[in-house]
């Protein structure tokens, strides 16, 4: 098993590859102003598990395939599939938006907190 510091550096490396959840969720966390503890909280996962979650493959496909990926990650790390799905959908939608539109959406989402909804076009 890797120690925490090595895992964190591996996450930083994986962030450069869209294949990994790290690339999607860390960019989203940055735009949302979340640090690692905040991101773990948003995902509902233990902070110690977060690096291992981020080193998972990003769920792909649509419908059942996407759901199966999410459920597998959620089951492995004791997450709620719905929270993980919401985070991935928000992150995917934000990543696809032009920066100005993303900022407007984030500002609106912050106004609506604590219940922030994914944008309408957020279906992966």
């Amino acid at each position, binding site marked *: *098993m*890797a*120690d925490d510091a*090595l*895992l964190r*550096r*591996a996450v930083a*490396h*994986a962030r450069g*590859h869209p*294949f*990994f959840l790290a690339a999607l969720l860390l960019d989203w966390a940055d735009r949302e102003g979340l640090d690692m503890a905040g991101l773990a909280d948003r995902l509902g996962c233990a902070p110690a598990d977060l690096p*291992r*979650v981020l*080193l*998972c*493959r*990003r*769920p792909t496909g649509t419908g059942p395939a996407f759901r199966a*990926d999410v459920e*597998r*990650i959620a089951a*492995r790390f004791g997450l709620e599939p719905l929270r993980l799905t919401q985070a991935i959908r928000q992150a995917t939608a934000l990543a696809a938006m032009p920066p100005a539109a993303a900022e407007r959406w984030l500002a609106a989402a912050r106004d609506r907190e604590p219940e922030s909804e994914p944008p309408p076009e957020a279906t992966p």
Partner: protein
Amino acid sequence: MRADPLVTVSRAADRALHARLVAGDPTAPSDLIDTHLPRLMDRLRRKFPRMDPWDLEEIAMGSVTRIAMEPTRYDPARSALGTYLYLDASRDALNAIARTKRRAEHEISLEAVELSAPTRNTLATDKGDPEARLVGKENERMTQAWLVKHFDQMDRELVQLVYAGERRTETFARALGIDHLPLPEQRRRVKRHKDRINARLRRLGIQGPDHG
């Protein structure tokens, strides 16, 4: 001969992990990195003790993430996964060492060219200091060897003029044997040759003296 149970278990675990990667289990990359990255780092540090540990770590991460993303690159029938990763990362480390060596050679060459240029060669012209004379001679020898390796005779002369800070068109024109041509034509041709020389120096990893 009986198989080592630990190795056998490890091979079985590797095969299972590889099968999960190939099948697209989204948690398999995380397990691969968690399990294999520390082992790989240990082995690489032992094999390349003089290499920067941060560089080694980047190399190790590169190998592990490559297999996570493209698991079919590895054939479990041919070797253990740990062995494959070790060989893959070792090859990258050796390439990195070779690149560093090439860069260092270029830097030495650049230094030699700069020191031997007439306007900058303060060491070689310091006749009163035997050590400086020796250094100057060595620089001169290195410069000549490097120039001969990379440039023909005419271009060697041009490189040395460039590094000497020479800017006069007529000097380059004389070296090129075109000083009989009208001045505008000399300028055009000299510029073309200087651009060519600078481009060649850049390709060799050396910035021309005008580029800081």
